């Protein structure tokens, strides 16, 4: 896939996110739009995963710690052929497996997440197991900045560095907003780079909407030998829809018919510029 195709895919996936949130009348719109470029690059350029053989023991692992942005994951998995896109028409409906957080009932989902601060410790276990077995697959998680205050993350930060898990990649969707307000005001986790470096991680900051930068950060080997990798992806909540960008109302806002049409037309305009 060329970078142009990847960029077009990002626009497509944004439209898909909005389509299914609009249809379900529920979803985490802002966060899904902030992390979807990362998911696009992961599933189309980085992860060694096969929709027809997902349980292959040598697959790369991706565990979405910020489980509430499941819409971004679901549309990406559907696009990669993990399940028919029409399944998503049941999103959040009675007895659907396509619920508001990832579950293993859905092909392509590694772990049931949703409670915050859970993805990274599980990834540490997966990464230790891979090292013990001398396997070359890698382990990835996506963290939200709002979940950083969860103590379990910091327990896991310690252990990942202790075990020198250079096969582990934690990507921070750093949109700097959470449901109550700006993350720095709700609970200040600023200087996250310095914090993680002090914890023994190798850190790289990128533009989390730039597919080339995302791929370069994830596909060029460990950032530093013997250290786990922390990618700070600077993002914008609601990215791609002007009236949603940086507007907290869209944390889990659902667009009206007019807003939905406007969003689609903006994305179509952006598509034409690629």
């Amino acid at each position, binding site marked *: 896939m060329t970078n142009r195709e990847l960029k077009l895919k990002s626009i497509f996936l944004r439209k898909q996110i909005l389509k299914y949130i609009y249809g379900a009348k529920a979803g985490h719109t802002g966060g899904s739009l902030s992390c979807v470029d990362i998911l696009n690059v992961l599933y189309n350029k980085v992860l060694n995963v096969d929709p027809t053989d997902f349980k292959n023991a040598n697959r790369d692992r991706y565990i979405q710690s910020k489980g509430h942005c499941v819409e971004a994951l679901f549309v990406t998995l559907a696009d990669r052929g993990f399940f028919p896109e029409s399944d998503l028409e049941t999103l959040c409906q009675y007895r659907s497996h396509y619920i508001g957080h990832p579950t293993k009932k859905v092909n392509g989902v590694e772990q049931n997440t949703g*409670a915050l601060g859970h993805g990274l410790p599980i990834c540490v276990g997966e990464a230790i197991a891979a090292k*013990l077995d001398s396997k070359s697959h890698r382990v990835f998680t996506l963290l939200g900045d709002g979940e950083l205050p969860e103590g*379990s993350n910091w*327990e896991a930060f310690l252990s990942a560095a202790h075990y020198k898990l250079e096969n582990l990649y934690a990507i921070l969707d750093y949109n700097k907003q959470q449901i109550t307000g700006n993350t720095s005001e709700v609970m200040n986790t600023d200087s996250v780079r310095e914090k993680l470096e002090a914890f023994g991680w190798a850190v790289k900051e990128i533009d989390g909407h730039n597919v080339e930068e995302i791929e370069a950060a994830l596909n060029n080997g460990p950032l530093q030998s013997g250290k786990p990798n922390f990618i700070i992806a600077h993002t914008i909540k609601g990215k791609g829809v002007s009236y949603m960008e940086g507007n907290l109302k869209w944390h889990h806002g659902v667009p009206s018919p007019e807003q939905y049409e406007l969003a689609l037309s903006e994305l179509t305009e952006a598509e034409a510029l690629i």
Partner: protein
Amino acid sequence: MGIANQQVFSETLQELAETDRTIIAVTSDSRGSGKLGPFGAKYPNQIVEVGIAEQNLVGVAAGLASAGKKTFAVSPACFLSARALEQIKNDVCYSDNPVTLVGISSGVSYGALGTTHHSLHDFAALRAINNIIIVAPADNFETEQAVRLAAKTNKPIYMRYGKKAMPFLNENNTTFEFGKGRTVRQGDDLVIIATGETVYPACLAAKKLEDRHGLKATVVSMHTIKPLDIELLEDLAANGRPIVTVEEHMVNGGLGEACASYLFQKGFKNSFKIIGIPDEYTITGSQVEIFNHYGISQDGIYKTCFDLIND
């Protein structure tokens, strides 16, 4: 007299690890209290230390299990079942990662250290979570069997035991199955259903009832709290005998309430008494002293049984 169930756990795990390199013990600065020092020395690649961080302990264990390791997460029962409850609920049970959670020094094994170090809530907390087997072995036989079976059972398991040497309850041990209670004494006059380290005083109480009054009690080691052996429970209740349950746990939400709930809904009207720790500020002391205080002793169980029969 046998040895501490904790010691049996570590020796059995070490034996299993010799031939099964997928066995991993995860510890939270607990290899000393978990008797895993020799295990760690012999199999340094089969032990993962996470430091005093129980949430991470269980999360890491879930990841290891997901990657195909037979994972035993070993930590004091008080911290494991409370501090890491959300990780047990989500990362182990909900995600169905087959971790064996090993709660050491359970109940009031750390009696003198206070409520922070008591695990008298674990049955109740974990009974309310789907997809977990809860086991409290009574003696060395049950502990060894439970560890062997856990290594073969591809499901989430919580196992808890104490640190005191335990007597053997019955020399004629042949079978052990999760979810199947073990009858260690037979009698027609009443039934005592106990679990974990309270089975032994229950047996002593049964003997005293027989010696003093000729009353014969059936004593069952209900080592599996969940799934409960409802078939055995119905058999025990069938002829209307009084039933006494005994556990090293709060009366709230434990074995006794599980049995009572099942039997009541099935229409049984047996007289019934639950012996356990009452809902109050728990006293401190040695395990034996706390048992004596709350009637989880030979004399206490004897008296409760005798009073119930004569009620």
